[in-house]
């Protein structure tokens, strides 16, 4: 999209795109432990239906997903798989960390085999605390994510992407565009915590 990465996107169009993006999210359920059951209840059961928010649960693969919901304890043995999953997802992508195990290690904060929080591996947008958080809390987290998406600056996000080697090579070949794409780090994400309060 030539308009987007050159930063010449009119504001109403950005707003329209953001709104449609936030209401057509495809979530990859990375359910590891007990929180996976609450996530299943939130996404699959008719009582806490998540589809009414515009979020569809079961994508065929992570390459088609918009955001990932990491729920459950991440162990050191599992961490490389989580990293690989995150790298497989195409931009724009978001992450929700569900449950206290994924937030900070949770009840296993002193274990020898648990990664103390999934934010050590992937950048997290929304933290949903609880052990396990009620399905309503997870839905609140998704609503907060949707609000964040609606207020996003698409151009800055597009330009801030770190180009993969193939992409970089392609861009270098088209020399008139190589100046526009500066290899930058992943954009700074200011995470939100469901229920308010600071992140300690």
């Amino acid at each position, binding site marked *: 999209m030539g308009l987007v990465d050159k930063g010449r996107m009119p504001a109403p169009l950005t707003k329209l795109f953001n709104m449609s993006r936030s209401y057509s999210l495809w979530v990859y359920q990375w359910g590891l432990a007990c929180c996976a059951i609450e996530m299943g209840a939130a996404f699959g059961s008719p009582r806490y239906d998540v589809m009414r928010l515009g979020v569809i649960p079961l994508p065929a693969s992570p390459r088609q997903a918009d955001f990932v919901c990491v729920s459950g304890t991440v162990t050191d043995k599992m961490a490389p798989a989580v990293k690989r999953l995150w790298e497989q997802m195409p931009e724009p992508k978001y992450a929700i960390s569900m449950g206290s195990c994924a937030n900070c*290690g949770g009840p296993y904060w002193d274990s*020898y*085999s648990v990664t103390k929080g999934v934010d050590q591996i992937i950048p997290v947008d929304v933290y949903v605390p609880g052990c396990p958080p009620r399905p309503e809390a997870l839905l609140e987290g998704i609503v907060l994510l949707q609000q964040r998406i609606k207020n996003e600056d698409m151009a800055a996000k597009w330009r801030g992407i770190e180009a993969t080697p193939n992409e970089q090579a392609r861009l270098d070949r088209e020399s008139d565009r190589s100046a526009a794409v500066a290899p930058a780090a992943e954009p700074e994400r200011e995470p939100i915590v469901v229920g308010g309060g600071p992140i300690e």
Partner: protein
Amino acid sequence: MARLSDAPPSTDADETPALPGDGLREGIVDDLRNRIGDAIVDVHLVPNDDLWVRVRTDAWRQTADALKAAGFTFFGFLSGLDWLPSPYGKGEEDPTAEPEEPDTEIRQGVTGGDTRFQVFARLVDLDRHVGITVKADVPDDEPVVETWTTVFAGANWHERECHEMFGIGFAGHPDLRNMYLPGDFEGYPLRKDFPLLSRMIKPWPGIVDVEPMPVQDEPDADQAAQEESAS
């Protein structure tokens, strides 16, 4: 084992109430003595409750054979015990109080023992509805015992886990590699001298309480202590 529903305990110190006999478990011990004889080092029998037997280390697999032939065909579990008191304490001590002297004496449990490590296993006889816990010492200088996989196929995974957690070797095991931990993990986690680093870096946040811990000498605590010491 006294229960609350029993009659109140007799206060006469000379009169010891007769414990109900446990013919089933005593019969099992006698049968085992017939089979493996002097390999039994110690027996702890709680009537109508449970049975512990400690055997010599070199008779570990022989015990398994004997018990399986005696009817204990159900394999419960197999694991290890490390009797060294932890040098790191529990991590729950009040940091403002005086640090206590750490206890370094190795005291084994119910059937005694001579070494720091012991292996123990549980087998059940499904027809007579009785289980038995067998223990054996693991020599300190060379922590290896025989494997049970030729007797009970299910011991395979349990021995792998025991090996990676305690460092106890199992001679004759077909495939003794890590069960849970990643391949490059160093150390044996369930040993008492394996530290939990998170606890050393950051003390448990719950130590600092808003209200003080309940005082020890309360009336109901005293009364319960008196009841327990009398029974």
